[in-house]
């Protein structure tokens, strides 16, 4: 049986969204998986390009790190909190339509380790 793409943050085990555009999920190793919400991917339209942040690099919150392009419009996004990027999703970079098709599953954007523990939760208002 094939599983349908997940459509809500809860499907990905996400604890919360940051604003309307990003969701995150804290994993047992203290890293956070970050993705685009279904609302944000719908608003963007079919994505043609995704360039993720550089793995291993420390970014400051808001510093341009991610770019997404649809219909000739490029959005440059910063990370929500200070931290080091652990991985960028190679499947989403290779075929950005994965983000449209499965935003809370195979279409995650990047994994990062925040500089300050609890900073994700503080940003979203969720309990740490």
């Amino acid at each position, binding site marked *: 049986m094939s599983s349908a793409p997940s459509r809500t943050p809860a499907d990905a085990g996400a604890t919360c969204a940051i604003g309307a555009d990003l969701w995150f999920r804290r994993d047992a190793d203290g890293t956070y998986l970050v993705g685009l919400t279904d609302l944000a991917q719908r*608003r*963007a*339209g*079919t994505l*043609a*390009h*995704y*360039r993720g942040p550089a793995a291993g690099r420390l970014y400051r919150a808001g510093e341009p790190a991610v*770019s997404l*392009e*649809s*219909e*000739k*419009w*490029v*959005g*440059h996004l910063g990370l929500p909190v200070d931290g080091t990027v652990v991985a960028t999703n*190679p499947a989403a*970079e*290779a*075929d950005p*339509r994965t983000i449209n098709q499965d935003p809370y599953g195979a279409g995650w954007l990047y994994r990062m380790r925040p500089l300050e523990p609890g900073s994700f939760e503080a940003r979203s208002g969720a309990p740490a």
Partner: protein
Amino acid sequence: MNFAAQEPSVAREVELPVWRLLDLGRCEPVRAQAFAESVAESVAAGEVPNTLLLAQPASPYLSLGFHQSFAEEIDPSFLERRRVPVIRRVEGGGTTWLDPDQWFYELVYRDEDGGRGGPADLERFLAAPARAARDLGLPVDLRSPSDLVVGDRKISGNAGGDWADAHLLVGGFLGRADHGAMVDLLRLPHPGIRPLLRSLIERWVTSWETETGAMPSWSALRDRLVEAFRALRLFQLRPAPSTPAEEARFRSETVPRHTDPSWRELSPVPRSPGPLIRRLRVAGPHGLLVLSGVVGTGLSVAVVDGPEVRAGYVLDTAPDALPRRVARDSPELETLRDAVRAAPGFD
């Protein structure tokens, strides 16, 4: 004169937010292309109003879309011959040839003030340049999401991006189209692709000169553009110069960024696995897809209109061999169609 009829529009005009009209005139390529990035920082900080820039490049150059690969896109021998700069813009779209026979309009605005950013803003604002062209006698329409066309041929390309917490929309009219440069600048995986691409560009890209036999004066077009943007009734326009802070930031940040090889040659994003090795969009839904190992073991080309394959070609390994057209309704063409269905096309 009917003063009563004028009062409501005068009242509305007063309530509209004031945007700055910044006419850069004829200027060096990096200023024509990228001064808007410096403006974006001032707009985002609230130091200046939202801004409409107008510009004309004083000399030719190439502009890469933000996600384009310098190494894959640009033919190094073309750069050697023509000695033109390459500027990676922060907005989207493909590689473009820009020269003094083109005229630019660029909008820089904060979130909510003029739009929320994203493709919907293209449609909203492009009504103005379309109207300006029509006012000058050229029947231009918007082909969603981002092209202005005369009939079915593109005369204006447009793109957008978010930068420094502001939105940027950039576009321009082709006064004269240098079809040769548009083709020759591209690095292609086989020389047989060049004539196919040239025929498509000649079919789908037009210019003011082609349509009317002459180019309008920049001052006439500039005046019509300003009037047409005012006629959107979204903002007032007041001419004002750039600020010392914008000029200083342009010199200390924007120009160094655009002359830094690491920005120009940003490493390419990994390509999807599969037979598609190159997408060459010509205009709107029209373009070429280059595939490997689909028909035979070498390269093949699909001429596409959106998801539809209009024709197929097989490229011989001999570099001087002409492309062989695949027969209509042949199994080879069906094989090519199957491969294109699985690849991202030009919607």
